[in-house]
């Protein structure tokens, strides 16, 4: 049973968390033209890396949306930090 570190609440049982998305995707400005390819990639293209992965997770009890770096092979959690002002465009 994995434990993940919510940036505010600390280490908690993995069942308190929900995977949200791969990190690094920015929503295209839809008030401008967005090509089909760009939109498709935004919605569906996943890097799915073997090894270190940067991901956005949600801690359900406190609803914190945060960035977690983990290794998808060894299950090691490398870091987590809040996805706050620093990351919004």
């Amino acid at each position, binding site marked *: *049973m994995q*434990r993940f570190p919510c*940036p*505010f*609440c*600390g*280490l*908690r*049982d993995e*069942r*308190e968390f929900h995977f949200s998305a791969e990190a690094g995707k920015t929503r295209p400005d839809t008030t401008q033209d967005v090509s089909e390819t760009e939109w498709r990639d935004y919605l569906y293209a996943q890097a799915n890396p073997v090894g270190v992965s940067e991901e956005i997770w949600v801690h*359900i*009890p*406190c*609803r*914190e949306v945060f960035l977690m770096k983990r290794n998808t092979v060894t299950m090691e959690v490398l870091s987590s930090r*809040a996805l706050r002002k620093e990351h919004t465009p």
Partner: protein
Amino acid sequence: MRDDRSNWTPIRKHEAQIDGHGVKVGQISAEHQVLISGPTVCAAFPDSFGWPDIAAGPFYTLFVRRDRVLLVGAAHSEPEGWHSETGRAVSDATGAYEVFEVSGKNARSVLDQGGELHAPSNSVARLLFGFGVFLYRYESEDRYRIHVARAHGQALWQSLEGACNAVDAP
């Protein structure tokens, strides 16, 4: 559609108690519960409690998120709504959460069946028996309070009942 009423135990009375196996469980009436959110709220209520802090007094605040506290036991000075001067969003939650107390020498054994509670935490919000709760100690090490969404009160009560019955097992 099927009539499933007999599949669901009717909701227990407010005064219902579990007493035995070294643990007592009952529901308490919270006079006031208020959600207060805002970017500086946690700094504004520095005496709020996390886990495994022991809250005390007729009223107190609990850290729920990095930008939210729950005020318990007293009305908040600001009415419901958004307050731009203080940067606070306020909502009454008095009826939104049922509050249970679990106390006695086996209280922790009961709760240990509902979640992994060992690690300290800034927040009292967690999952217990699968339900979103605010869990904290109140006035002593062996006395715990649990706030749960009212609609889940009956199910959490039944979970606590089952856990109390199991607590004697070695």
